[in-house]
């Protein structure tokens, strides 16, 4: 296992009447994409902003490459905030040049332009670019100092599905350069596609952590069979299966797939439209926090 690039120990952030972060320990290995997930109010934004060095914790410590956060950290970290504004009346090129001047070491701008596909919009006013183009520019700004550690805070919120998928490809490209990425997202599909490891937060604590596959197998030893209500017939209720209504489908959870299928066939249930669904991170999230994700 590679050595951790950032380590947080017993982080606490106390606001009047609210403990937003309640004793979090985190260690993120170099070169992975780490996803921090949680429902609204779970404390993930506060946690990530402490890790970014934007806020100080009430207690606890954060070490980057074994050192407390300081000037070196500012030089070596890249951050893409969820909500941010840029200097107005500047073009994309001028915005890149402005941020380039703020760092000692930078990635060559032409390389950055190519990496983030900004060539077509270089001379455009930053106020007049689309949501997807804006996110690519913000990612370019987060990468401008060629950082070892990159924070992406809900980078695809508000993007259409195509733009979101394009952005994922971009993140995968960045990841392939051995960068460490800390990602927060509301999209479980995104976490599954990009993250090597995830942590789920609730009420200021980390309630589950591991690779997506590990967590799914730990929490769900079974599969879900989906049968349209119209095909389920009257006798299904008498079979003693673990079945719940989910819209116009009946969902049956089972860890004995073969046996359950046989049982259904023997009882004349129409299986022509049967679907077997694997558990997703969204199911895991609900299972762990008891809450649905809200975007």
């Amino acid at each position, binding site marked *: 296992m590679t050595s951790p690039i950032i380590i947080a120990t017993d982080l606490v952030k106390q606001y009047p009447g609210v403990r937003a972060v309640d004793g979090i320990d985190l260690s993120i290995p170099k070169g992975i994409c780490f996803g921090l997930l949680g429902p609204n109010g779970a404390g993930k934004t506060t946690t990530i902003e402490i890790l970014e060095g934007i806020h100080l914790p009430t207690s606890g410590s954060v070490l980057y490459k074994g050192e407390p956060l300081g000037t070196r950290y500012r030089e070596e970290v890249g951050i893409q905030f969820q909500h941010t504004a840029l*200097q107005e009346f*500047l073009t994309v090129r001028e915005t890149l040049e402005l*941020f380039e001047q703020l760092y000692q070491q930078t990635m060559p701008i032409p390389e950055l332009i190519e990496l983030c596909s900004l060539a077509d919009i270089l001379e455009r006013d930053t106020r007049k670019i689309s949501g997807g183009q804006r996110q690519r520019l913000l990612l370019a700004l987060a990468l401008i100092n060629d950082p070892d550690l990159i924070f992406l805070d809900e980078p695809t919120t508000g993007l259409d599905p195509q733009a979101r998928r394009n952005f994922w490809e971009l993140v995968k490209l960045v990841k392939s350069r051995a960068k460490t990425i800390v990602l927060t997202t509301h999209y479980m599909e995104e976490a599954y596609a990009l993250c090597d490891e995830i942590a789920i937060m609730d009420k200021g604590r980390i309630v589950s952590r591991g690779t997506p596959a590990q967590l799914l197998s730990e929490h769900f030893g079974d599969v879900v069979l989906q049968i349209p209500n119209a095909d389920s017939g009257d006798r299904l209720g008498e079979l003693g299966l673990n079945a719940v209504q989910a819209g116009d489908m009946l969902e049956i959870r089972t860890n004995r797939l073969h046996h359950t299928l046989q049982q259904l066939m023997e009882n004349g249930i129409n299986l022509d439209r049967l679907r077997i669904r694997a558990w997703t991170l969204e199911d895991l999230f609900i299972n762990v926090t008891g809450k649905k994700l809200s975007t």
Partner: protein
Amino acid sequence: MKKFLAVLHARNMEFLRDRSALAWNLAMPFMLVIGLAFTFSGSNKEIYKIGVVGGNEKLHSAAPTLQSTKYIQFIPYDDLDAAIGKVKHHQMDMLIDVSSAPKYWINSSSPNGYLLERIIWGAEGKRFERQTVEGAEIRYVDWFLPGILGMNMMFACLFGVGFVIVRYRKNGFLKRLKATPLGAFQFLFAQLVSRLLLIMVITAIVYAGCNLFIGFNMQGSYWTLLFVTALGAMSMISIGLLIAAHTASEELAGGMLNIVTWPMMLLSGAWFSLEGAQVWVQKVALVFPLTHLISATRAIMNEGATLSQVMPHVWVLALTSAIFIAIGAYVFKWE
């Protein structure tokens, strides 16, 4: 240094490309100066001003009925030379000195002085010794120009810096900058220098443009005027920085900026002279940088004051700038 220059350049570009704001910054002082020049071009003063050195009680014993004459305002003075200077430039119609043998000064080319002299001659009491001074009249436009330009600078500096920083904080741009190695002082200093450069260029353009139409009185050195104006602008920018150092609310910042600008606008002598106002009002007015800026620039332009003569104002402007910038940088919050 390169961080400072990058932020300075970006802010300059932002200002210069915002054409509506730029046009307004140029048009507003032009309109004010030209408009007021036409409005007050006639000599329609209804109140005569007599400066008094030596105190009103002595004046009363020297000329018992004079002070009850209607339409004459008596203004106490301690500094005889400064008061004579006012008569010289027609800023005061007559000066009476009763600290020793009663004397009066009038400007030999002033019609108002001529009329007041007739009143003195007809008044009961001691005989006043006549003194005359020579000097061209300072037109009202020459008197109010430093006030108008100073006031325009005040608004441009305070609101131009204060609101911009609050907007940056509110929309998250400052938070984005906080995530970089840029320091608070570098950021604030870039804002200060950017606004200072732009306001000096705009003020110079407005001055030169209006001068083509009106032809201002300029007795002193342009370099001294430039130096004092830059210092005054810096002082007011630093107030804007201080107000914007902490808040993310445009409403609160607007309220605070108004609290600062309104008293300055009314009491700094931009629109009317505070001579003859209550002493405490004159003392309160000295708190405001705009008062010192206007007093110093009027002295340079209308009386030919040198840098050493306006040094007390220069010190106040320099000290207020240093204090407000230091406090602003100390309490500055990125978020």
